[in-house]
């Protein structure tokens, strides 16, 4: 699928910087995202020190060796990149982006490069090159679609990931991500949205009342229940913004009767470490693991969130015990499993609109979760349509790689990043787009709003909540108050 280039007007809007001129002057870095104050002196040396330290203690060296030796610069990745498709700027070709870091590696960390440096005199890495990387790595949505097209098999997403990690070690990282992570790891609330436990408990109680009102079933959000089968970690922002998703999940557990819980010691699945720092990544997954072990839970259950699910699935075994690590399950897998076992009944007459499914990159690119949610959706959405392309070749929402959390670059995300996605949504003609990922949902809502597309963005469990059919034994008859008798009868008639 191809898209048209952005117009000059759109370009001006997308690339307009909201960073104050005096800040740009002080930070000596012309990027569109806000950065906390950092030491702007002697950046190349500090960049190389950080790079060397990371190479020493990580596994990146052998990967870079391999990629740096064989990068052929054929440009086939250009076709796969939705950013390049929208801008047409050569700087946005994934291979060009990767070359920025690969060349630093070749020149400063390989024998041939160092000899070349000696002969030509002087170092290679300059402030300008750091500027270029700081801009380029955060223009990318880290969707990793380009890696599928590269005949050399280079994972450009991994190089962007590493580039951002090194930059973060010298203080160049979007403030939005740092502030959230600081609250999560060092703050009192211990989560990226700053929701304290009493507020969480109130919210959940409110949702429970709502659910009883709507479904006449007592559905609980169990807190701190030890020995549960599943300890639940959603993207914590769901507690503020995605009530229906959470209610859908709670409803599924009520229907199946499986034991699950939310730990009040730590309840945030978000892990911005995946977007900018392996050190943060490690600290966050350790928190998830500790909380599950505190409650003696059997499985770590991650909510509707692509990056949270991928980080837990991939890095809990990495950082928390290898073979002995706790199993990680995505709520999409759980729901699919119980639906397949016949423990989840869904009414096929409730959702009549044209529904399509958006593959979050972190679920689909590695072919982890592609068909499971589709099977569930097709079972109760009569008017299901498919977008093209899908699965591991899906198109990113345009807010991947943490960019969705950077509010100041919204015009970029909805004009450039999500342009191809917007075209895809329009072409499908769907009225409801299911996006089981907190980041995708936020981005897609902003995208359809800015691109003026008439489409509702929901999570998978939002629809499940609407269509779920409970066993008769779970439905409680409400006590009818004499004064409201007529009213209730009228309501029931309408229903």
């Amino acid at each position: 699928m191809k898209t048209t280039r952005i117009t000059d007007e759109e370009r001006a809007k997308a690339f307009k910087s909201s960073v104050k001129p005096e800040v740009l002057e002080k930070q000596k870095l012309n990027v569109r995202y806000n950065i906390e104050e950092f030491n702007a002196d002697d950046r190349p040396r500090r960049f190389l020190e950080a790079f060397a330290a990371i190479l020493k203690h990580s596994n990146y060296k052998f990967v870079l060796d391999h990629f740096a030796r064989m990068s052929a610069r054929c440009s086939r990745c250009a076709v796969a990149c939705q950013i390049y498709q929208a801008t047409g700027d050569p700087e946005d070709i994934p291979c060009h982006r990767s070359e920025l870091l690969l060349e630093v590696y070749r020149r400063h960390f390989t024998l041939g490069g160092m000899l070349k440096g000696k002969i030509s005199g002087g170092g290679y890495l300059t402030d300008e090159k750091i500027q270029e990387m700081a801009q380029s790595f955060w223009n990318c949505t880290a969707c990793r679609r380009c890696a599928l097209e590269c005949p050399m098999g280079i994972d450009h997403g991994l190089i962007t990931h590493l580039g951002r990690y090194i930059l973060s070690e010298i203080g160049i990282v979007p403030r939005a991500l740092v502030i959230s992570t600081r609250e999560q790891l060092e703050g009192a609330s211990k989560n990226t949205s700053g929701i304290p436990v009493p507020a969480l408990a109130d919210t959940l109680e409110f949702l429970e009342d709502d659910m009883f009102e709507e479904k006449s079933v007592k559905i609980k959000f169990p807190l701190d229940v030890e020995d549960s089968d599943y300890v639940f970690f959603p993207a914590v922002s769901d507690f503020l913004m995605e009530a229906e998703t959470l209610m859908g999940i709670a409803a599924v557990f009520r229907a199946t009767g499986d034991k699950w819980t939310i730990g009040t010691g730590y309840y945030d699945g978000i892990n911005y470490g995946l977007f900018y720092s392996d050190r943060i990544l490690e600290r966050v997954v350790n928190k998830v693991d500790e909380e599950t072990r505190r409650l003696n839970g059997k499985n770590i259950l991650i909510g509707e969130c692509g990056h949270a699910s991928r980080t837990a699935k991939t890095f809990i075994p990495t950082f928390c015990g290898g073979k002995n690590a706790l199993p990680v399950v995505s709520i999409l897998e759980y729901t699919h499993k119980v639906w397949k076992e016949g423990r989840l009944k869904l009414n096929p007459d409730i959702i009549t609109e044209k529904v399509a499914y958006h593959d979050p990159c972190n679920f689909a690119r590695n072919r982890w979760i592609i068909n499971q949610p589709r099977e569930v959706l097709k079972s109760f959405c009569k008017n299901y349509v498919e977008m093209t392309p899908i699965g591991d070749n899906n198109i990113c929402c345009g807010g991947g790689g943490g960019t969705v959390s950077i509010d100041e670059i919204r015009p970029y995300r909805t004009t450039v990043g999500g342009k191809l996605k917007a075209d895809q949504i329009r072409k499908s003609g769907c009225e409801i787009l299911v996006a089981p990922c907190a980041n995708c949902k936020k981005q897609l809502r902003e995208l359809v709003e800015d691109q003026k597309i008439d489409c509702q963005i929901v999570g998978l469990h939002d629809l499940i909540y609407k269509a779920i059919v409970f066993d008769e034994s779970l439905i409680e008859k409400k006590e009818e108050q004499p004064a409201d008798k007529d009213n209730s009868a009228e309501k029931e008639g309408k229903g």
Partner: protein
Amino acid sequence: MMESLLDFVKGPLFRLCFAIMILGLLRIFTLDIWNGYKAWRKAGDKRIPWKLIRRRSWEWIFPFKRIKNNFQVYSVISILFHVGLILVPIFLFAHIELWKTSTGISWPSLPFTLAFWLTISTIIFLIVMLFSRIVVKPIKALSKKQDYLWLILLLIPFATGFICANLNVSPYNYHFFMLIHILSGELIFVLIPFSKIAHCVLAPLSQIVCGLAWSFPPETDDAICTTLNKKGARI
């Protein structure tokens, strides 16, 4: 004079250059596997996604599905170019005869007509690819000096080999073209392990490297903090 020079480039120099290529490629191939093994040993999660690696490797070997979404002409040309580039030097009758004379080893050769057309097509594809690097915007933007030089360097042995095998040239010119043919081939041999053409042995390992790439070692946070003097620093 010319004949003794030819004997030298065909004999000792060829052996030296060929040995450099083989040893160089062996070195980087072994290093890749050894470093991959060391990375795997260090990794916190030692599972390797073999299923995905297998799938992606098949897609790489048979890239037909991908071609329809990408620069179709460029991709097809690139694949066909590789066919000629690999088959002609290895399976040309004249080359096999040289091996047979010096080592006694031989193997089946390409029919003359097929070799003829493969050589012509490789020369044309090389010129088209060079032209693409000069005019097609994204390819041009990515190209470095060595990308152009490689295409020219590859063109030389194919063009001179074609002249020697198919055109009636005077003995002096024949020797001259043959000298250029062998010398350029030997230069290619020497450069292969030290340039992007190393992908001839490394590319098949790429999917395994990518599969291992996200297998991080545990407890790097602490080690990197110590090295960078950031222990206890605020996030």
